[in-house]
């Protein structure tokens, strides 16, 4: 791999990668069973430079911001490369957000350029707020012939001849602004420098190296910190290959493992669980003698492998299982949410290690990772090289808030000094997560101190962000909480949002009110919905500026009512 110590910015490292491995394949893009694109590092350069030149000719200047809203595909990485080459700042936005949310974040980021897929652009064009967008240059990929693009350019035609000028950046300059959430209320744009990415990439590849010939299947959205790192920067600076799939349907994902002989893949816990279910169902269909043989081989694998993975041996003992994953898979990487230890153990027993870790956008990608020396299903691993972790105010069990210090921390939240000051104190990032170290230096997590939830799909949800949907609900007042914030659970999983409702005097909770609540709830994406409500009989505590004191209200409710009795499911 490239020696990242020698670089001051991502643009320079990526540019050298394209020169170093000209004939290695860097990108494969498939749509279902059809392979659409296959590029070597040299081809990548040929496609990227005319785009870079066209951006510069359109007055895209160093430090300017360019947002990308795309599903996982080759044009995502080509566009990001062009932006870095110009010395620009990449703003990766979540393609799964609503058009309105995307427009809000675009405005907040002050992006000058937007690169977006046609179907997502079409949805944005239909939003009433579309007229207000102030992006100067919009490039739309894959637009059908004759489509109305509302003044945008076609990405495919946005090319200029002539060498673009390479713009170098310093390590402390901004590389990306990544929104950790906060679409409705308070956008949280994490400002991340080139140093963050170079250091993070160095630390991760020290434990899990890539090399030419490695094929990484990119399924997690590229706007997500994990895929941006292990599905773009990591493989590129090592000469490896990234495989993009334009569909996430399980049958095509399964095919891709085999067709492209995948080496690594990163998945959210929900998908890993789904794979486990599928395999368990397959095992259950086997005839009794075959199942007996399989179980015996799994037991033998466990015995011989012990706590440290030996993939070669496991492939020999359980050839069918490994063949189903293409036969060359080294590990499943997972993160972004809580994974059940039993799921990790299930795969480990089959000889497929699941590598989990812990991180947050505010800290680059990952703070801890399991190094499989030995495999542990009950922790999120050890701090990565260069990461210092501390447990603040530990209780009798050693559990307290996890604080982190590292070169991989964000610099600040964009345009929000107040929130930055609350989050980074004396150089330590207060994560809001509860954890403790066990005797071998592994971090164990025990839920959250902050008012938020993380879904099994890896989505961070801040209750205050979804309250706007309930604006005008005919009650005196309401407030949405993460249930675990009111009733600390000191465990992970089973997270839910609940709404505390204060009715008007003499008002009753009627069927009509419930219907209204349900109808508004339905406007939210499924993973953001409120799961239950509780009726509270006192006025909410408020600040002088009439903001609800959420922590005080949560303490009042939690101190007076049991969760099981208070919350009515919706």
């Amino acid at each position: 791999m490239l020696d990242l110590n020698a670089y001051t910015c991502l643009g320079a490292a990526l540019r050298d990668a394209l020169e170093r491995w000209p004939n290695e394949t860097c990108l494969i893009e498939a749509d279902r069973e059809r392979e659409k694109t296959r590029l070597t590092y040299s081809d990548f350069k040929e496609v990227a430079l005319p785009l870079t030149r066209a951006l510069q000719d359109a007055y895209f200047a160093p430090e300017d911001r360019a947002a990308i809203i795309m599903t996982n595909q080759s044009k995502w990485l080509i566009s990001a490369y062009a932006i870095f080459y110009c010395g620009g700042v990449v703003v990766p936005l979540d393609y799964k957000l609503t058009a309105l949310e995307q427009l809000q974040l675009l405005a907040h980021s002050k992006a000058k350029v937007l690169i977006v897929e046609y179907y997502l652009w079409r949805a944005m064009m239909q939003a009433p707020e579309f007229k207000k967008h102030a992006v100067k240059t919009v490039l739309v990929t894959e637009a059908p012939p004759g489509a109305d693009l509302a003044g945008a350019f076609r990405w495919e035609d946005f090319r200029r001849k002539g060498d673009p000028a390479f713009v170098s950046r310093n390590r402390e300059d901004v590389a990306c602004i990544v929104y950790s959430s906060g679409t409705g209320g308070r956008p949280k744009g994490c400002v991340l420098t080139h140093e963050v990415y170079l250091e993070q990439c160095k630390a991760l590849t020290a434990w899990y190296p890539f090399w030419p010939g490695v094929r990484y299947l990119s399924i997690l959205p590229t706007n997500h910190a994990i895929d941006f790192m292990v599905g773009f920067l990591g493989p590129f600076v090592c000469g490896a290959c990234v495989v993009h799939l334009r569909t996430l349907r399980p049958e095509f994902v399964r095919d891709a493992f085999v067709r492209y002989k995948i080496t690594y893949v990163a998945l959210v816990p929900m998908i890993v669980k789904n794979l486990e279910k599928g395999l368990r169902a397959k095992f259950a269909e086997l005839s009794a003698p075959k199942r007996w043989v399989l179980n015996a081989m799994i037991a033998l694998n466990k015995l011989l492998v012990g706590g440290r993975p030996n993939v070669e041996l496991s492939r020999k003992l359980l050839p069918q299982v490994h063949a189903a994953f293409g036969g060359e898979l080294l590990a499943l990487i997972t993160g972004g949410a809580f994974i059940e230890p039993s799921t990790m153990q299930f795969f480990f027993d089959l000889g497929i290690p699941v590598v989990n870790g812990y991180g947050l956008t505010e800290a680059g990608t990952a703070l801890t990772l399991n190094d499989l020396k030995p495999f542990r299903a009950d922790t999120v691993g050890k701090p990565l090289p260069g990461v210092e972790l501390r447990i603040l105010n530990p209780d009798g069990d050693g559990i307290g808030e996890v604080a982190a210090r590292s070169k991989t921390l964000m610099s600040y939240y964009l345009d929000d000094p107040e929130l930055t000051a609350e989050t980074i104190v004396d150089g330590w990032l207060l994560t809001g997560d509860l954890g403790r170290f066990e005797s071998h230096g592994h971090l164990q997590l025990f839920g959250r101190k902050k008012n938020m939830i993380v879904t099994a799909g890896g989505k961070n949800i801040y209750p205050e962000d979804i309250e706007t949907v309930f604006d005008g609900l005919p009650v005196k007042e309401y407030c949405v909480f993460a249930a675990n914030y009111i009733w600390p659970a000191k465990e992970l999983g089973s997270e839910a949002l609940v709404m505390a409702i204060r009715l008007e005097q003499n008002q009753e909770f009627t069927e009509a009110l419930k219907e209204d609540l349900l109808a508004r709830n339905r406007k939210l994406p499924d993973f953001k919905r409120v799961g239950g409500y509780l009726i509270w009989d006192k006025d909410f505590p408020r600040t002088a500026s009439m903001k609800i004191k959420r922590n005080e209200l949560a303490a009042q409710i939690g101190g007076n009512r049991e969760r099981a009795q208070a919350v009515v499911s919706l």
Partner: protein
Amino acid sequence: MKTADQTLEEILGLAATHFKVPREKLSADDDFFKTLNIDSLQALDLLTRLENHFKVELPDYELQGVSDFRTLAGRIQSRL
């Protein structure tokens, strides 16, 4: 060529059969995630069933922001 109503009716029928929900419990404006109690992966699975039935290819993005049967039917109808 099927009418929009026929398409909608067939989608409701297929969803009821596939997810084992009585047909009369489903209606056009229902949020299918909620009524069928499914997650986004299962919704993709439903999309595959609908492709096989209607003999059209439905890219994943057709489900972006769609959660009710009527809108889904509109997306499919435009591809028939």
